[in-house]
């Protein structure tokens, strides 16, 4: 008797536990499936931004005026002036809302936007796929064609940088990038800078070089390296994927032969060795440290939202207002759009 009761209560316990787990599992399941629900525009906008210092964020902030800059002549405070490193800028403030999620990879942004109906983020045009929806800016679609003809202004250059004295292989490889073949590769996912380049006519020297820098440029650089290797098999090209700042610093330091950057070089980076914080150990070759920068391609920056989001066009100001935190919900955005269209019709 008691044996069976005990046995039963054990079974009851286990079954209750299993029930709880199944319930949890079900909620997990429904949680996964719920992403196709109807779009509720009263919900907060989930703003996603890139990390401080990233080339993509730098370009985006500049183009949407998310950085407040005050020049030196407006202020006469000597103390402030002292803290300034190089140029005339003495006050610079990043206006991006502090509530914005900060992600350090394009992939995380895309996955987040794909799963979150209320999210908005920005990515490199070359990384775009059909799981997220691109947003038109002032009615102009973010396509390579529109970047090329200049109507879509949200773009940034891909830059390579190198010293004036470089190895023959590096020189030849740069020649290849800027040749017709190289530019054709660049044009596949990005935008070429020189449509009328000459054909590649290098002498294919052997040797080995290190190329490093921006992770945004690296997909293009990888393809270029592969193509170049098929032409010049003796060449050994090593790619280090880090980031723009490291790429520039290490090139000027001599670790990389060619640096990649997804933003323009700062004045302080061009001239002399940028503070020798990365390599104090070899300060001997400070001569010839001036860096040359060359544009190899253009890359658009695409604003993306979830596919269930009804909005597909935003004005430049609306984007700015979203990113400085003025618009809290998608309704705010809708109201502005409606007002605009009413104004226009009047």
């Amino acid at each position, binding site marked *: 008797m008691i044996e069976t009761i005990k046995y039963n209560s054990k079974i009851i316990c286990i079954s209750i536990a299993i029930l709880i787990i199944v319930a949890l599992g079900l*909620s*997990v399941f*429904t*949680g*996964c499936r*719920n*992403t196709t629900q109807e779009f509720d525009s009263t*919900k*907060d906008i*989930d703003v996603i931004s890139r*990390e*401080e*210092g*990233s080339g993509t964020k730098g370009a985006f902030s500049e183009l949407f005026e998310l950085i407040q800059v005050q020049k030196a002549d407006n202020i006469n405070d000597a103390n*402030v002036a002292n*803290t*300034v*490193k190089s140029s005339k*800028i*003495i*006050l*610079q*403030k*990043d206006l991006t809302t*502090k*509530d*914005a*999620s*900060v*992600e*350090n990879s394009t992939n*995380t942004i895309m*996955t*987040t936007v794909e*799963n*979150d109906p*209320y*999210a908005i983020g920005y990515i490199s045009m070359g990384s775009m796929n059909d799981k997220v929806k691109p947003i038109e800016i002032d009615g102009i679609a973010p396509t390579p064609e529109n970047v090329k003809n200049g109507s879509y202004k949200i773009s940034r250059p891909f830059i390579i940088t190198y010293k004036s004295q470089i190895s023959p292989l590096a020189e030849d490889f740069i020649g290849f990038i800027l040749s017709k073949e190289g530019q054709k590769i660049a044009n596949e996912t990005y935008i070429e800078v020189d449509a009328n380049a000459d054909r590649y006519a290098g002498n294919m020297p052997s040797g080995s070089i290190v190329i490093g820098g921006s992770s945004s440029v690296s997909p293009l650089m990888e393809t270029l390296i592969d193509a170049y290797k098929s032409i010049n098999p003796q060449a050994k090209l090593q790619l280090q994927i*880090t*980031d*723009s*700042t*490291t790429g520039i*610093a290490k090139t000027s330091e001599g670790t990389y032969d060619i640096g990649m950057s997804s933003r323009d070089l700062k004045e302080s980076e061009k001239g002399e060795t*940028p*503070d020798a*914080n990365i390599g104090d150990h070899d300060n001997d070759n400070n001569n010839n440290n001036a860096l040359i920068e060359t544009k190899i391609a253009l890359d658009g920056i695409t604003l993306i939202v979830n596919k269930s989001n009804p909005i597909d066009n935003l004005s430049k100001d609306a984007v700015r207002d979203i990113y400085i935190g003025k618009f809290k919900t998608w309704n705010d955005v809708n109201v502005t759009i409606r007002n605009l269209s009413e104004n226009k019709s009047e």
Partner: protein
Amino acid sequence: MNYEIKKMKTNMKNNLKENIMHAIFLIAALTSIIAVILICVFLFANGFPAIGKIGIFKFLLGKDWSPTDIPAVYGIAPMVLGSLYVTAGAILFGVPIGIITALFMARYCPNRLYKIIKPAFDLLAGIPSIVYGFFGLMVLVPITQNLFGGTGKSIFTASILLGIMILPTIISISEAAIRAVPESYYEGALGLGASHNHAAYSIVLPAARSGIFASVALGIGRAIGETMAVVMIAGNQARMPAGVFKGVRTLTANIVIEMGYAADLHREALIATGVVLFVFILLINLSFSLMKRRIVR
């Protein structure tokens, strides 16, 4: 005579060998001490100047982190709090479940099931943290978003994921501790009329507390130092934590997000962030070894 000399020679040779090896062993033993000293020296030497420049109170208690602004502001209070909250959350989720699971493994689990789940939990410990990050991003974030609103990237999500990540550590060490409790304790409890549950929970579990504390300490260490997974699911907003379902940035995330771009004082400030993290870990280790000593007494 000749034989004796030979013997003495071999003895001397052996002695020499013995002494040399003794020295080598001693040097090897010193490497870990040297390593700790080197780590301290290099981190502190690179981090302290920045703290000095920024000002220790401004650095530790500053609520604003805007390294690219001019003039730049470096305050890591949000990140310190973020790390603390996320770790506390991970303990809240991971520790009770981990300890009970360990007890289950040691006292409840049928042998056949044990043979399957024991290696499976070991596997859980071996999965790289970046894979956990993917899992969190694709599975946990959408779930929390649907259940609790917001972006889904929050203290809550990060806590759950970290709770899962510290489970294997807690389970394996706690289980070993529970198994080390003499069988007679359990039998004695049963003999005095306690039920199976009671014997397990109120006799065996407290007897294993020293080992369980050690597992919790290691779990905390892992949670506070976790980087790649947290960075994907915590939201990383560099502002004071605003709620359980709001995003947060941890100390580790701060380093890994910005290290690549940083230069000059910004870079030193990030290394100083690492120093703060290091000091945190040291404090946790110290307090737990003190606690352990008191428990043992």
